[in-house]
């Protein structure tokens, strides 16, 4: 049985800054990395491989340079990787992305039964958390999101038990396979690749599926298959840090009150 894990190569957004003067994005030297959530999804897939003997296939949609991310997946122990890359796939929003990914997964399911699709909850560049549910809906798989622990898998009866983490509560859910599982960062700690595996992955030929292979209607993928459009991009106003209770306030109570007022005014705190 297969576990498909969806990973995305993203710019390391913590290194992206906006030039306060010109309002342009400073991303000089910003490297591409594996989306951190997806690193946990991959790790969970590999952990389940170690425990239950699944075969793990990592798929990624992106430009040819996204190969790097898939090589990392190979180095960590994925059995196979597939890059979905085509001019027609570019500019996709979550609707078009989930379309392409689910079609690719369908192709894989022809040869082998799929137990799970494991995704990171969201990407750090888009932060949408929508691709996972999109895939589950299109494939009619069980949808389990915000998973912070896979408690049990019963392969015989095709059942799975997970723990989901929602606001203020954990939910233990039991459901059926195949399932799409979107995981949180807390679920595990990704492993480190060994050198022989790294060397193997550097030499591996990465399978690329373009639209000649996928043969999808170009109006359903990429920019043309997207329902949303980005109209405008601008920099947020981010204020510098401020020292409360400096020279003008000597009383800690006043400083605390000022801090609370600030937080309430920014909707970060509510006093009931």
């Amino acid at each position, binding site marked *: 049985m297969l576990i498909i894990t969806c990973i995305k190569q993203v710019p390391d957004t913590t290194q992206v800054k906006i030039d306060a003067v010109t309002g342009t994005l400073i991303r000089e030297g910003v490297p591409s990395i594996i989306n951190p959530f997806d690193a946990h999804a991959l790790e969970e897939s590999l952990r389940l491989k170690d425990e239950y003997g699944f075969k793990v296939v990592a798929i990624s949609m992106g430009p040819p340079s996204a190969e790097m991310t898939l090589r990392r997946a190979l180095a960590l122990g994925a059995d196979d990787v597939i890059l979905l890359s085509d001019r027609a796939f570019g*500019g996709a929003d979550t609707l078009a992305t989930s379309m392409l990914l689910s079609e690719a997964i369908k192709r894989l399911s022809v040869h082998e039964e799929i137990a799970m699709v494991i995704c990171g909850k969201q990407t750090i560049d888009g*932060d949408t958390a929508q691709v996972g549910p999109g895939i589950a809906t299109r494939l009619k798989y069980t949808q389990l999101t915000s998973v912070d622990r896979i408690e049990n898998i019963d392969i015989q009866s095709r059942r799975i038990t997970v723990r989901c983490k929602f606001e203020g509560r954990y939910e233990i859910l039991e459901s059926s396979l195949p399932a799409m599982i979107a995981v949180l960062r807390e679920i595990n700690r990704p492993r480190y690749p060994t050198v022989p595996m790294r060397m193997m992955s550097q030499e591996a030929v990465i399978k690329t599926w373009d639209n000649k292979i996928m043969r999808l209607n170009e109006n359903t993928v990429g920019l043309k298959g997207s329902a949303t*459009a980005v109209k405008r991009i601008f920099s947020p106003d981010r204020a510098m840090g401020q020292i409360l209770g400096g020279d003008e306030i000597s009383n800690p109570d006043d400083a605390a009150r000022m801090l609370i007022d600030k937080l309430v005014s920014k909707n970060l705190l509510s006093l009931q």
Partner: protein
Amino acid sequence: MNEKKKIRKPLGVARLIEGKCILCGARCQSICPKHVVTMTEQGEPVIDISLCTGCKKCITICPSQALEIYFTSEQEKILEQIARDQQETLLHEEEPEALEKPRGHDEYRGVWVFVEQINEEAAPVSWELLSVGSVLAKQLDVELCAIVIGEKVEQLCHLAFTYGADKAYLMDDPIFRYYRTEPYFKALCYLSKKYKPEIMLIGATGVGRDLAGAVATELNTGLTADCTGLAVDNERRLLMQTRPAFGGNIMATITTERSWPQMATVRPHTMHMHERDTSRQGEIVNEKLDMYEEEIATKVIEIIERKQSGEVDITAADYIISGGRGLQSADNFRLLKELADELGGVVACSRSAVDAGWMPSEHQVGQTGKTVRPKIYVACGISGAIQHLVGMQNSDILSQGKLKP
């Protein structure tokens, strides 16, 4: 003279403005009808000017206005030529086709807000959404509807009216006792297909994002995640959805122009909640989903209140009160605990506090401890050594307090 008439006015070619590309994901390449855009390893476009026809499609689609039209030196020459022969009538190339301007879809009307509830109690974000939804509905001159799904939740409809809803669609059934994707998703799709709203707002909570992603895919429409600002373009009946992207480094305004409903999940605490108007009444529409418990694969085994679970996970906490060597004793950590409990946050600490035995090591933030990303990080009696700072530098707001002995 006849020959000159055939000169076409050059339309220029597209080029990238240095430093403006945001690596949106090759929209320009994708839209280019002549396939003259290639992407660099980094993800920036390279335009083959010898083939560019100046159609401006890429310029329109670029979300960051990073592309512009300019004239090559040859084209400049031709332009000059044309200028010299001003008197001549010029052959105008027809204007590039403008993107079709949608004006809404007559079938789709109304603003919907999904009222998220657990144990018959609504999540506060639902009321925030009704507040903002009532503004949007007023501008579009349509009804504001609350979608209430659950078991024994009719009272939520009445509450929704007091927050501004005109109508409530209610689905009350034991299968909705707990939130599960399958029945909720089917219910919302059923309602949407039947009543066709033009805008649907859902709270960007764990549940909300689980539900919205599935519904939007099924309805084959656009969904914008985690919005922090909403407005409408009255003329085109477009919902202008503003949200942070690139880890909050930039803001983007997003629209869904050719499919309905226009769906958005909205970040809690970002919309102003109106005062309740307890006099308001509305119409309740009861609906039923043709689904039985036996058909639902997912079973809720247990729900555990996070507070009672005894598990402390500082990496996922929104509020962190952290203490260090400056606190001087384990006793003083109780003060932090009180504050943390008040805020619904957790207590963390620096390594010195672990070393001193004041706190267990799973609370440690820093290089050899955990990396946290809370909304608010309050550091008390922590000197701010680099080993600690790297563990909490991604917090939204930091507050550091020095302690006077």
